């Protein structure tokens, strides 16, 4: 009698156990939220769309490879059209959603949000590489995987001085002449101007009047004519690709006769397509490899581009996808380290994550990454490329940290 009564009970208990076990993966799946601000429609959408695609693809890669020690990441990605007020609004939403970190975009909004993210202890990994964000005394929660704009500008000018200036017919007879071409009102474009002029002084340049070129310019003849009066040997371009291409085209057409050095957001695979012959010989900064270049980790970048955005041909993808991977990979590593240390709070992600990285290698042609509690400049070596027959050729890796160790350590941090 007892045996007969016990069987239904056992059966029900077993059934419950089986069903609970069956659904346990769904029941226990823990999710971490990360915010992402991108520009797919605004003033920097010529480079922002590719970066946005790269962020989402890299995040799929992270989740496919275990997420953060088994926790999956839910990405909230919003286009803010490069409008600072909208970025501030979206940031408030990220806080409401309880994101543990934010992947940001532009310099204007990143710098505007910096005091807030510091107060909130929100790790903010941006595509803005403004040097203003590298001093942890002022902006401890701002981070990025790349060398900063000021370091890049110094390196580009130095590479031109090392490689091109000695071949000039006036070398040794007079000072080389530099002009800066950029959109004055754009915080991104103007961020490294003080630094490049300081580097010009250090190397003995004469600096001409700056030229204001809008990010939307397709006709820059008046600026080129103004440059011609100064007869520059080299022009620094601080805009994004479209307006840099327009300036190179007009400089070529009007016979400016200067060389060109270009910031990383103006130096991508679209530049030779848009500027054609006018881009030949132009030198520029690449903070990581170009899309498809043969470097460690690029196979993943290509695989995920094909898998998640099969409608976009690979020959239309840019190095900005690779830059997006760089930022996602450092955030991933920081979160894994913080989680292992016991907490995914913002402070833990910073202290137990980012600031424990010493020469951390993410591949992708990026420099090994070091963050310390006193310095958020990831590296002092910058690869400089040159356009040759429509392709990018590595010219020199400028090691600013070794070449000017005193200035690097004591003078150049944070601007």
């Amino acid at each position, binding site marked *: 009698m007892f045996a007969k009564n016990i069987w239904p009970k056992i059966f029900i208990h077993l059934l419950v156990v089986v*069903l609970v076990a069956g659904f346990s993966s769904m029941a226990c799946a823990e999710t971490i939220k990360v915010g992402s601000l991108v520009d797919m429609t605004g003033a920097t959408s010529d480079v922002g769309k590719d970066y946005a695609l790269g962020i989402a693809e890299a995040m799929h890669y992270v989740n496919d490879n275990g997420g953060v020690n088994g926790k999956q990441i*839910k990405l909230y*990605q919003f286009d803010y059209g490069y409008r600072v007020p909208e970025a501030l609004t979206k940031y408030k939403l990220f806080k409401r959603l309880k994101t543990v970190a934010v992947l940001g975009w532009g310099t204007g909004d990143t710098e505007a949000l910096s005091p807030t993210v510091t107060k909130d202890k929100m790790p903010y990994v941006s595509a803005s590489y403004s040097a203003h964000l590298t001093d942890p005394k002022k902006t401890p929660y701002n981070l990025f995987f790349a060398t900063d704009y000021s370091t890049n500008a110094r390196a580009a000018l130095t590479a031109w001085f090392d490689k091109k200036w000695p071949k000039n017919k006036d070398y040794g007879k007079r000072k080389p002449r530099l002009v800066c071409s950029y959109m004055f009102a754009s915080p991104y474009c103007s961020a490294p101007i003080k630094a490049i002029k300081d580097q010009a002084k250090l190397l003995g340049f004469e600096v001409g009047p700056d030229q204001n070129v809008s990010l939307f310019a397709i006709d820059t003849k008046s600026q080129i004519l103004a440059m011609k009066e100064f007869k520059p040997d080299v022009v620094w371009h601080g805009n994004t690709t*479209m307006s840099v291409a327009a300036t190179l085209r007009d400089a070529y057409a009007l016979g400016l006769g200067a060389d060109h050095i270009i910031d990383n957001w103006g130096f991508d695979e679209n530049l030779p397509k848009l500027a054609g012959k006018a881009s030949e010989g132009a030198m520029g900064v690449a903070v990581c490899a170009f899309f498809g270049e043969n470097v460690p980790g690029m196979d993943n970048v290509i695989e995920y581009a094909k898998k998640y955005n099969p*409608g976009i041909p690979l020959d239309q993808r840019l190095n900005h996808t690779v830059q997006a991977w760089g930022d996602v990979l450092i955030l991933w590593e920081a979160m894994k380290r913080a989680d292992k240390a016991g907490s995914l709070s913002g402070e833990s992600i910073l202290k137990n994550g980012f600031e424990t990285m010493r020469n951390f290698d993410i591949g992708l042609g990026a420099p090994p990454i070091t963050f310390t509690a006193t310095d958020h400049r990831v590296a002092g070596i910058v690869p400089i490329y040159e356009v040759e027959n429509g392709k990018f050729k590595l010219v020199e890796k400028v090691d600013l940290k070794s070449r000017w160790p005193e200035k690097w350590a004591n003078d150049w941090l944070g601007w």
Partner: protein
Amino acid sequence: MHKKSIIRGWLSVIAAVALFAGCAQMAVKPDQQNFKTPKVTLDSMEVAHAFGYWYFSNKVQPTKGKPENVGAPLELAFIFNIENPNDYPVKMDSLKFTIAFEDFDLNTVGSTDTMWIPAGKTNQLRVSAHFDVRQSLLSLLVTGGFKLKQEGTNAWAILEKWWTEIPQYNIPVHVKAGSAVFKADGLTKVATFNATFPQ
């Protein structure tokens, strides 16, 4: 005592039947061979809100508030059919696509809201896309500047045409490079789609 055990026995059987019936659609387990890519098609596009065509630069003093560079909004809604051809439910993780007016890509939008689609059924998803004259002007200039020049037109002329003609459904709006990510039991499939409305 005997009666109680009979009732318990019957209850167990009923519970088991109900649970197995509830889980019947899970009988087919997703695997790489049987996981068919769901199909995404554009059902229609609606002009959700149109406000005419106008633009004020920040040199113009508004009646209230601060002067801004601001232009007429245009709200479009894209309704997609999402068909699950599988014998088990699938989860749509995200969907995104680029919107082009004529030959110009203007916006990339999407949805990261998750959605479960029952086996063999078709769900619908509405994705809103906001445009305004200012935003579209910037996007046009920075990505389509050279093309406008080649075509002998300018941004203002083309914006006026779009803002007055799209609400009449006279200008084709293209959905390009669309992709939607689907998951089933840890497996992933990505559906691609393109469309034009009106066709």
